[in-house]
């Protein structure tokens, strides 16, 4: 594989990052387009609702945009973006926790209505719990709509490894989802 073949995805990311840094903010659009679903899935699992995930995803993009000059390797935009999203998710979770504590104190015994979960929260939460390499591949494959070949290029690994990792990810998701369903049964 030649250097350019190796990861056309990453090279494209790098190109857009550099365009943005060159003063063409509109080029950021392509990066948003490419990673929004990935980011949403990533965040929905952590934050529990689509609205919150959207807000956090927007924030992640905006923060990424303004920090782009600090991105050492523009071809690693994706991993870097996920890192930013992780931080923002943490901030949101912390704020949410504080807000709920306050609300609980304020309303004493009053029931606090649970936040509206996203449509398939169980799945998103299961994805969020996956270890990094597995989550990355699931996100790219189903939310980034990348083929396994493309993923192999982007992550710079043999196709066989991608296939194996994907299989393992499936197994993990299934067992995690089964557990959730079981516990829901007991709870009800």
């Amino acid at each position, binding site marked *: 594989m030649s250097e350019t073949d190796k990861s056309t995805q990453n090279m494209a990311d790098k190109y857009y990052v550099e365009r943005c840094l060159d003063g063409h903010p509109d080029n950021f659009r392509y990066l948003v387009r490419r990673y*929004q679903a990935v980011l949403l899935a990533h965040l929905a699992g952590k934050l529990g609702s689509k609205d919150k995930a959207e807000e956090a995803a927007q924030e992640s993009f905006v923060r990424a945009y303004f920090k782009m000059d600090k991105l050492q390797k523009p071809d690693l935009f994706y991993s870097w973006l996920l890192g930013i999203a992780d931080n923002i998710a943490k901030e949101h979770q912390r704020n949410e926790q504080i807000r709920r504590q306050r609300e609980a104190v304020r309303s004493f015994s009053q029931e606090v209505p649970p936040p509206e979960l996203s*449509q*398939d929260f169980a799945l998103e939460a299961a994805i969020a719990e996956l270890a990094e390499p597995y989550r990355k591949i699931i996100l790219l494959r*189903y939310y980034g709509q990348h083929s396994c070949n493309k993923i192999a290029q982007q992550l710079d690994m043999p196709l066989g490894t991608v296939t194996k990792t994907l299989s393992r990810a499936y197994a993990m998701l299934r067992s995690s989802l089964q557990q959730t369903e079981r516990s829901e049964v007991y709870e009800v």
Partner: protein
Amino acid sequence: MNCAEYKELLVAYIEGLLDEAQKHSVAEHLKSCASCRAELKEVSDLHDRLVKNSNTLTQSNLEDVVLDRIVREQNARLKTVDKINASLKLRRIIMKSPFVKLAAAAVIIVAVLVGLNPFKDTVTFAKVIQPILNARTVVLDFIVGDETNGAVMHDVIVGSKIRRTFSNMETILIIDLDNAKMLTLGPADKGAIYMDIQGPLQKGTKSYLGLVRDIVSKIVDNPNIPVQELGEREIDGQRAVGFLLSEPNIKLTIWADLETALPIRIEFLQGQTQTIIKNIEFDVLVDESLVSMDIPAGYTLHEEEQDWSEFTEQDFIVVLQVWAGYVLGGRFPDSISLEELMKLAAEVGQAAEVEQAAEFEQAHQLSISDEEKMQIGMAFGRGIVFFQQLEPSGADWHYVGKGVEFGDANTAVFLYRPKGSDTYRVIYGDLHVEDGEAAQLPK
């Protein structure tokens, strides 16, 4: 291959990642194996679930909203950058402008406010200090802050007029307390400015005689005020007897000449601010022209619009801007006190060398009008008065700017509670201000 091995291939199978031979083999096996068919169903269910969820999420289009937010944030940041750039320009002007001396002059008025009579009712003079009241002239040194580092003001008091000079700047002030007027003289630029000090400034500006008078009367006449005798000590070569008077927030020490009973040194601690009056001499011979409100020969009168009626938060923000943005080059000071502000004012005021200022303005093509410079200088002076008027004990204001960078919109530097307010005003590192409940305040 056994079932376990086939199951391993199922994800790759539905993903279309197997070669023809493998695919065929899996398909054949599935026909005959119910367990693997069930497994396949589960795998493809999960696959469908992932795709479906992805479709839901992909419906949201963040492109426009993200781009929008970026543009808005960009604009906000540019404004901050503009502000900072404008401040930099301002800094050059402030550091070089003779007009800032005015601000420095204002600071000096403030210094008088420090000595504001802390007691509410006034009483008649006690016999022992009768000579003070009759003294027509008094000469003294006045220090705000530490005696060894604090700037010294030298006062010549004749009746209700004061001539004030400073150890750390050239400006001369002549204050006419009866008429609430102040004449500022700048020996460097030979400029003269009259200032109206009516309003709060007039109220606050009292001669030290008045201060001494009130305090001593209190000590002598009011048995309820606990006065502690400090005994005898040598002060500047004179035998003196000392009295200490303490009230919440106030500590006053007076050393009086053992023979004449005249005060020769007064130490005054109010809240966080210490002032010292020393080298006091009564009824010395003074050239009265020193306190003349006429403009001396060789000086030119500058007529300026002035406003000393109000001291606002906005004025104080100018002080922070000058201090953090210019003098300290982008960071906030470690602490803030009247003593430090007075030093700052002197520093800023003294930087104003007229010729340099003109050259500088030319070289940098600065086109800020004299009037604008004046505004900055005035705001700066008023801002210091604003700070001075906050509760001296510091109970209702807090400085938290240590280590904060100028322009940091997320970190508070100063918070205070306006009189009669339940909420605090919080000034941030970029100098924007928010209201805050006590519970949410930093620290």
